[in-house]
């Protein structure tokens, strides 16, 4: 009796598990194949991928590191994502504090202005942005062909500001008032009371910010006209053009370019889902 019961249960669950397996093959299969190909020998044909390397080696990575300029592009990407993310999260937290915790004349106008940039596709302002970067107003310097030119335009991000504002609004006013009674300054309230309480939201904007910065394509493309300033994702197309390079090496390089966003996503999944659902449910 007991046996047959579990058999029917298995029979009912089997199609479901086959279906899940199919989904995994379709959506995760390419990642798997890229990882396996990257660790296989360098003798593959163009377009060929392997699903299990016969004798795993690091040859492709060795080639990528010593015979191509991948390290240079990876360094550019790392610099931009590190400084870009720190600046983006910092200025977003500061702005969110003012928008969430202060009443002042013009607060609604500032919110509207920032919100309006969410409707503005970045691609649409590419040409004037290129001209502005070539001659920054007030400073009269050019940021073209600099890392700073690829960082500054992306540190103001409305999504990040609004996400933090929403969370900061939920911190009870009593906590702030108690701190004020103890003689805390405005900065101390921001830094020691509010920020520690919204750590989960900081995680969310960090993981979304990372993915957003790693996804930048047009910005590095217009700022850098020297290839040695390209970020890794943007440089892939010119790396590919080197015909002397074995195809499997390029697979390894593509794997290097996709890994950072995958790792940060896996490491901060809880924070990621929080942001996704906040966006999906509230719109």
């Amino acid at each position: 009796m007991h046996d047959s019961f579990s058999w029917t249960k298995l029979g009912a669950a089997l199609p479901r598990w086959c279906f899940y397996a199919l989904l995994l093959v379709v959506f995760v299969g390419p990642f798997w194949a890229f990882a396996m190909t990257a660790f296989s020998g360098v003798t593959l044909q163009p377009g060929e991928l392997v699903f299990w390397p016969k004798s795993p080696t690091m040859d492709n990575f060795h080639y990528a590191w010593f015979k191509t300029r991948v390290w240079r592009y990876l360094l550019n990407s790392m610099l931009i994502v590190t400084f870009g993310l720190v600046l983006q999260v910092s200025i977003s937290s500061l702005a969110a504090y003012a928008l969430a915790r202060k009443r002042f004349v013009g607060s609604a106008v500032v919110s509207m202005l920032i919100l309006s940039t969410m409707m503005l596709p970045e691609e649409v302002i590419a040409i004037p942005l290129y001209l502005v970067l070539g001659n920054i107003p007030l400073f009269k310097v050019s940021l073209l062909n600099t890392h700073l030119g690829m960082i500054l335009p992306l540190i103001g991000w409305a999504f990040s500001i609004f996400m933090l504002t929403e969370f900061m609004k939920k911190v009870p006013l009593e906590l702030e008032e108690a701190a004020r009674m103890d003689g805390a300054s405005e900065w101390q309230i921001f830094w020691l009371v509010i920020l520690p309480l919204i750590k989960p939201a900081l995680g969310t904007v960090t993981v979304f910010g990372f993915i957003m910065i790693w996804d930048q394509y047009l910005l590095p493309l217009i700022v850098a006209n020297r290839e040695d300033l390209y970020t890794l994702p943007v440089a892939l197309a010119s790396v590919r053009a080197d015909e002397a390079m074995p195809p499997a090496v390029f697979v390894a390089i593509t794997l290097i370019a996709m890994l950072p966003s995958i790792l940060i996503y896996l490491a901060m999944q809880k924070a990621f889902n929080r942001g996704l659902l906040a966006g999906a449910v509230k719109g």
Partner: protein
Amino acid sequence: MMRALRQWLVPALFLAPALLVFTWFKFIPMALGLRMSFYKVNFGAPNEWIGLENFSRVLEDEALGAAAWNTFLYVTCTVSLSVVLALLLALSMQGVTRHIRIIRTALFLPAITSAAVLAEVWRILYAPTPDGIMNSIAALFGITAQGYLNDPDWALQWLMLMHLWKSVPYDMVIFVAGMATINHELYEAARVDGATAWQRLRFVTIPGLTHAITIVIVLGMIRGFRVFAEIQATTGGGPAGATEVIMTRIYKLGFVQFDYGYASAASVVLFVFTALCTLLYLQWRKRLEA
């Protein structure tokens, strides 16, 4: 007086860095782009005011019109197919919350992969050689080797498939989240009334998902009309203009032909169009909530 000043000064200081970068890198470029669209931009000579001439060129430009048509096809096909497929997947996962987490994690990998990397992955999957991955799969079904992105008749459709690979899992996760918010008592009531599975879907699940479905469609449209990176990095608009979309065309006008004024006018039109979509959506949502 001092108090009033302080009350204004504190938020101003906290907002200053954000407002500065927004002004420099969003608002000034926006204004400059709008202004340039009324000029013929010359190099080494003053720009000429030409009124609406750039805009009338936009309307007559056949290459831009073809790109707009491709963009329209790309957006309508990817958005509608993505919603339908994602809805089917979400339905198939309904009620099995326990297994979903690990599968959801895995299905999200395409969605977080940056567009340029995605493009390189699919260029390799679409290798037009007989040993290429997609051609090997085609061979399993007895289909002859395809040219994929090199085939002017089908390249756009293959790019749509690449887009779906990224968007379907994303939309599905939103639908699964939306389904979790539907009141269980509604399903119970439907069961008591003897509703069939189709009726439960038609009268409980779909109405409960209206909000999620609208978000997915509107975001898909807004993102789709300005699609750039995934096309620039795969085909660059080729072969023979088969996959040229609005943004790859504007990119060529601006950064290859240096026709800044005209490219700006085309950008302004694209912006107005996406802004209208957004406003329509906001209006629609307001009416729904009222």
